[in-house]
């Protein structure tokens, strides 16, 4: 497991290096072409911009692209529009993302409640009265952004996960209510070993026999939520294929929840260990206190980055391998790319469970440390 994480961090840093160098090379092409869709760039005979392709695929989106390009070839692109929900100065504004005609360079303007909106690089800006965006020297719009609560691709997949989890576990829970303590049947048969695994291998060893009951629902929810979202990220077609757990907002939210839970349930002993470490001389106590305070925040941050980096790295590897075909402009690369993608995908299947397990494990470890009694 450690080897996979290690290998991945190497590949990840290599890819970042690669993408940075690409960016440096790509600057010659001028801003106009950069903003165009990468595939169109390739059609024009220009260099294929793998960085923007990868970034496009691992980023969130306001619509769900299913297949195809609007380039006149058969089949035409199919993009599922998703609702856009904005909180503006004039209150709530909602419309479907199809009103932007899948435009992403800010040239299509939608007017609602007397305000004009344009989408630029997957972000929605409020334009001036003429419906134009003003760009700064780094090609970033300077217009104000309304608070964007849209059902984006990631939110859509997350809600799908919510639905599937509720149905799956609803059925399982019902079968338990019906069967009582008899042997599990149907979906419960599949779920029960996992639940028992979380209880016996994660919750009880880390939190302790006495207190684990209070935290096991949180751990189970985290594990299954993260795992199913990770799995959905691996499925490469509609309505999955969203990089939810590789999105920093998602992992940050979970990490914040863990941070809050850990620090709310923490007992006197925990705070004493942070601010006034027992059993060491006073200068050492003063020295350790700031480190421990930093540690308080580092723990959830590490949770956030670990999940985000692992899942994003996995997606980037797969996209890079597929991207090789277009970078090298040879169909003969395809078998190699596909073979490697298959290999990485198999590892990623493991990673989906491992990352969910690690997240849950560390959460229980932090909770266990926070409620540990003095000994």
């Amino acid at each position, binding site marked *: 497991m450690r080897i996979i994480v290690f290998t991945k961090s190497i590949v990840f840093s290599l890819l970042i290096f690669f993408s940075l160098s690409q960016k440096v090379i790509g600057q010659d092409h001028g801003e106009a072409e950069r903003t165009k869709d990468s595939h169109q760039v390739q059609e024009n005979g220009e260099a294929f911009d793998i960085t923007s392709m990868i970034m496009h695929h691992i980023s969130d989106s306001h619509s769900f692209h299913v297949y195809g390009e609007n380039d006149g070839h058969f089949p035409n692109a199919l993009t599922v529009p998703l609702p856009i*929900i904005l909180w503006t100065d004039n209150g709530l504004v909602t419309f479907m993302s199809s009103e932007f005609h899948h435009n992403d360079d800010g040239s299509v303007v939608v007017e609602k409640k007397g305000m004009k909106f344009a989408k630029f690089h997957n972000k929605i800006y409020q334009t001036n009265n003429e419906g134009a965006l003003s760009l700064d020297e780094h090609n970033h719009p300077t217009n104000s952004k309304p608070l964007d609560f849209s059902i984006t691709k990631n939110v859509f997949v997350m809600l799908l996960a919510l639905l599937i989890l509720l149905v799956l576990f609803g059925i399982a829970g019902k079968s338990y209510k019906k069967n009582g303590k008899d042997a599990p049947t149907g979906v419960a048969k599949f*779920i029960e070993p996992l639940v028992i695994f979380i209880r016996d291998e994660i919750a009880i060893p880390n939190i302790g026999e006495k207190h684990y009951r209070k935290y096991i629902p949180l751990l189970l929810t985290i594990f299954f939520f993260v795992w199913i979202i990770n799995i959905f990220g691996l499925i490469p077609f509609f309505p999955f294929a969203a990089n939810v757990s590789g999105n920093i907002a998602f992992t940050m939210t979970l990490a914040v929840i863990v941070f809050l839970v850990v620090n709310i349930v923490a007992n006197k002993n925990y705070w004493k260990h942070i601010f006034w470490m027992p059993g060491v001389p006073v200068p050492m106590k003063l020295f350790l206190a700031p480190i421990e305070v930093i540690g308080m925040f580092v723990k959830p941050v590490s949770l956030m980055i670990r999940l985000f980096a692992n899942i994003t790295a996995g997606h980037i590897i797969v996209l890079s391998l597929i991207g090789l075909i277009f970078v090298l402009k040879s169909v003969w690369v395809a078998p190699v790319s596909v073979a490697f993608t298959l290999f990485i995908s198999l590892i990623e299947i493991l990673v989906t469970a491992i990352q969910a397990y690690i997240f849950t494990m560390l959460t229980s470890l932090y909770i266990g440390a926070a409620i540990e009694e003095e000994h």
Partner: protein
Amino acid sequence: MELITPAIGLIFWTTLTFAILFFLLKKMAWKPILGAVEDREKSIIDALASAENARKEMQNLTADNERILKEARNDREELLKEARSMREQMIEEAKGEAQVEADKLIAKAKDGIENEKLAAIADLKSQVADLSIGIAEKLVKEELASKDNQVKLIETMLKDVNLS
């Protein structure tokens, strides 16, 4: 930068989704599943314990049975022994009594025989006396039929008498 800039919308929706998931699953799934699993584990432990108890009880019962069987065997042995000794005693007693009775009978018979013998002897004596008297009468009659004889007799008799 975009990659590591969290979007407010996703934070909001993640929080909401997680909260819904947590509360609904806690109620719908985790409580019944963990409850049932715990019940089952408890019932398994109980069943094992009761099986162990039953085994122990069984062992006790077997031991009891063996003990009772042994006791019964001992009792039988004792009873047999007693019966045997009683029988022997009874035989002894019977033998003794029979001896006494037999002795008595024998003694009685002996007495009877003695008496009969005496009576027979007495009878025989009187008959012999009668017979002798008769013979003597006949002899006397014969002897004394003639005068000569009578005189002769008297003479003999007188001869025998010693007048001293």
